[in-house]
């Protein structure tokens, strides 16, 4: 059992607070660290991997402080976000060097096993400088896995990967999670985290905004006022029909909204409080009233707005 504990941790850089009083426990299985860019995910991962000291609070692995403790690397495998990795080495040389640096009894066998795990044997004789982003990511994974660590930390591992590589990596991480290893990865994409992580920790603006399994997080994120921009053949009549139902909290008739493609002159700005019900209500009401819907678009689906809602609640 390898457990990383983050206890009342803050980290500031000069006047900027990157992580603000965060407490969380990362245990076996896959945990997703979710948050928009600049939320403090990398700062947290740097502290968990011993590359940054907390300004206050403690980051420990099974009760032992991680900062300035090289022995923790016997248990931790780190996949950094940066791509530079001794470009002049071949994939094989790179992973082998990592195995040797760990002082493993049979570094050659460990390197072979790690490269096989990430299915990179076919390109192991090529210099890593010639690799694609996905290939680099996999060789970085191999270097982090070479000593069979109990904890695997990955900083934005899916960045720049194509869908096939993404699925492959997810499959690999799932296997590690199933093995009882502690796997933590960061991402700013909810769908990514949802597909993979059993447990999700959400950080926004340096603060721990939410924690739970993906269903809880999804519910938190969908049970909030949703804003829509709707264009139709008769905005005014549609508005009156919609406001009669309890799922809408407010409708604004905007006559000046610029139409997309010039098909309609105005638009409705609708705030729905019951997301599920509104999505079934809208087409039904429109059909019954004989109104044509030209545009139905969510006005605030950016992750940032979802997150800011979570933080304010």
């Amino acid at each position, binding site marked *: 059992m390898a457990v990383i504990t983050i206890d009342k941790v803050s980290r500031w850089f000069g006047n900027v607070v*990157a992580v603000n009083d965060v407490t969380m426990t990362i245990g076996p299985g896959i945990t997703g660290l979710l948050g928009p860019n600049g939320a403090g995910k990398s700062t947290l991962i*740097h502290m968990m991997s011993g*590359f*940054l000291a907390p300004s206050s609070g403690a980051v420990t692995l099974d009760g032992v402080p991680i900062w300035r403790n*090289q022995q923790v690397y016997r248990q931790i495998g780190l996949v950094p976000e*940066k791509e530079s990795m001794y470009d002049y080495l071949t994939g094989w040389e790179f992973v082998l*060097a990592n195995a*040797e*640096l*760990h002082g493993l009894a049979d570094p050659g066998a460990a390197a072979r096993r790690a490269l096989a795990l990430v299915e990179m044997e076919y390109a192991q004789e090529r210099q890593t400088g010639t690799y694609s982003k996905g290939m680099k990511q996999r060789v970085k994974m191999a270097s982090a896995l070479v000593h069979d660590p109990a904890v695997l930390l990955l900083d934005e591992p899916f960045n720049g990967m194509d869908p096939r590589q993404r699925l492959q990596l997810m499959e690999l991480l799932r296997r590690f999670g199933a093995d009882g290893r502690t796997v933590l990865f960061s991402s700013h994409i909810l769908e990514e985290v949802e597909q993979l992580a059993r447990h999700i920790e959400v950080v926004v603006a340096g603060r721990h905004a939410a924690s739970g399994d993906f269903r809880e997080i999804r519910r938190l994120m969908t049970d909030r006022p949703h804003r829509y921009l709707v264009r139709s053949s008769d905005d005014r009549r549609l508005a009156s029909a919609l406001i009669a139902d309890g799922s809408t909290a407010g409708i604004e008739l905007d006559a000046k909204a610029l139409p997309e493609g010039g098909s309609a002159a105005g638009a409705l700005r609708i705030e729905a409080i019951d997301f599920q019900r509104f999505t079934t209500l809208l087409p039904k009401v429109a059909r019954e009233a004989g109104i044509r819907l030209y545009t139905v678009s969510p006005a605030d689906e950016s992750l940032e707005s979802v997150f800011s809602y979570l933080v304010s609640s």
Partner: protein
Amino acid sequence: MNTTVARLTARGLFGRRRVLILLAVPVLLLVISVIARNSDLDKLELAHSILGNLALGTLVPITGLIVGTGVIATEIEDGSIVYLLAKPLPRWQIVTTKLAVAIGATWLLAALPTYVAGLIVYGTADNLALGYALGTVVAGTAYSALFLLLGVVTRHAVIAGLAYALIWESLIGNYVEGARTLSVQQWGLSVTQAIAADGTVTAPVGLTTAVWLLIVAAVGATALASVKLSGLTLNGEE
């Protein structure tokens, strides 16, 4: 010493375009020596200019700078140092291994060419060539350690090192009496004086002082670099 760290460091150092600059300077020194050998000027004076000013005063600090920062600053800069640091390796071992590579490279690229240049210009007379060669050996060692430390503590190691080499060593160290005691170049010269025939080389710093200061500088820089490396933090992207 860690052979893997040494291998990675040496390949990084010599495997890049940097090696061309590293080779260009000693080659230039040898070319100048050949030209000087065929001139009618006083050979002892020429030897002092070439071996003292050019080799010990310029070639050694420049090589020490490129090599000392090159063995670690580049990796810190591009972030690949993570792969060395995320290992259960004592930090002093990483630093001393990298230092050993840097020192070896400085000897090969600065001390050896200095010796050859000395032989070309002055032959084996007065032990002058050997004296300057050993002077560059000890100065190169100290420079390697100092510049390696600089590579760990600042992201602008090359500029800081250049400023140090040009302003302190070349300008102040050459002209201000008191500052000479704290100049690597002068320490090297003290060693040269001790080996060369009496009266051929004058060094302002006594040998004992020079040797002690050399040891303190090299060992101190290495120890400090080890401490700094174990507290190395990664800058986030955010």
